[in-house]
């Protein structure tokens, strides 16, 4: 039986893993792959200590940093499916000796005294007519992957955070015309990045605009454009497009926790933001799976460490 199983290999899982290894906790890290959601970011300029780095390079550096720690155990290539309560024979403060059996999608299972859930999130969909139908046929979710396919074409990016602003830059390198469609009046991403984009002659910014439909081209096989609501005058308008890149944040990968922990209406795991404790004793969570207000790589990494330090205290019997 492990003292700790870390579920997830993004910034929160990796930082917690490095601390766990250095504290010689007997732990296992389970992840489908390392790096988390930012692996697809073309450029990260706000990781302290590094002026500019691609998401892929940063993820690789994090993974390498973790992998050189002595005595670590990793189960890579599969996801956690569900967690079952078992008896662990270990109790921190004289309470019930609860432990957990983590079942993976590949059929394996592992037992542990404590769990750190850092499984992150997956892309949020727009949820409008045509989005699913044209996924891969012009509707895209990875600008570093698919931007070259829109060379000399017209594309729109939907969203207002740093991921959306980064995607505008990725597309502008290839496309003839790029629209940024933002639902609110303000940009959530960094002003520095926004100003850079505003100077780009290829880019047109539509604030207060909400996409309501993705429609097809004449042949019907690929994207032809979007319909959006211009909230300034309340009218519905159309844009002719070849591609629509959706960058509107993430939804938490919290399904595997079932009803064991308290979640909010967005399915985010509710945690105490000092200790990262969930509502269930011996389960902690950190990063984008939780109800944290700000989604940043550096915040996920530090929340992972907060969780680990709290777990260490618990394993020491509350000291």
């Amino acid at each position, binding site marked *: 039986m492990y003292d700790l199983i870390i579920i997830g290999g993004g910034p929160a899982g990796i930082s917690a893993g490095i601390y766990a290894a250095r504290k010689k906790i007997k732990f296992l890290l389970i992840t489908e792959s390392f790096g988390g959601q930012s692996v697809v970011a073309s450029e990260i300029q706000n990781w302290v200590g590094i002026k500019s780095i691609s998401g892929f390079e940063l993820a690789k550096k994090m993974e390498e940093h973790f992998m050189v720690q002595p005595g670590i155990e990793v189960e890579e290539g599969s996801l956690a499916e569900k967690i079952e309560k078992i008896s662990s024979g270990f109790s921190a403060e004289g309470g019930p000796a609860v432990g957990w059996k983590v079942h993976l999608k590949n059929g394996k299972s592992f037992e542990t005294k404590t769990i750190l859930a850092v499984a992150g999130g997956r892309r949020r969909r727009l949820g409008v007519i045509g989005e699913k139908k044209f996924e891969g046929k012009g509707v895209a979710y990875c600008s570093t992957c698919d931007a070259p*396919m829109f060379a000399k074409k017209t594309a729109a990016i939907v969203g207002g955070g740093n991921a959306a602003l980064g995607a505008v830059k990725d597309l502008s390198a290839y496309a003839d015309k790029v629209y940024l469609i933002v639902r609110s009046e303000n940009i959530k991403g960094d002003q520095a990045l926004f100003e850079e984009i505003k100077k780009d002659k290829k880019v047109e910014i539509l604030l207060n605009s909400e996409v309501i439909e993705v429609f097809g081209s004449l042949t019907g096989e690929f994207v032809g454009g979007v319909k959006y609501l211009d909230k300034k005058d309340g009218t519905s308008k159309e844009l002719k497009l070849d591609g629509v890149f959706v960058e509107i944040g993430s939804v938490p990968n919290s399904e595997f926790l079932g009803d064991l922990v308290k979640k909010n209406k967005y399915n985010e795991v509710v945690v105490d933001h000092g200790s990262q404790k969930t509502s269930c004793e011996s389960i902690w969570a950190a990063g984008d799976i939780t109800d944290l207000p700000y989604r940043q790589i550096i915040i996920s990494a530090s929340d992972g460490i907060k969780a680990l330090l709290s777990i260490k205290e618990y394993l020491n019997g509350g000291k």
Partner: protein
Amino acid sequence: MHTDKKIKIYSTPTCFYCVKVKEFFAKNNIKYEEVNVATDMKGREEMVKKSHQLGVPVIEIGHEVIVGFDRVAIEEVLGMK
């Protein structure tokens, strides 16, 4: 592992999942041909025609076409499981 099936990976240089697919094949000692659809226009047309979509990576194994780094599908087509 050895396979008689011809393998082609349609990719772009900045695509993380493309790198992961290539790593997967390299780790299993499986040879593949790479088509960079960011610059190879003929290759791009071929990819769209075969996969009926615009996203990378596209992995062609024999006559099977897999869109995205779908490890389970790749292992199935190659009979690795």
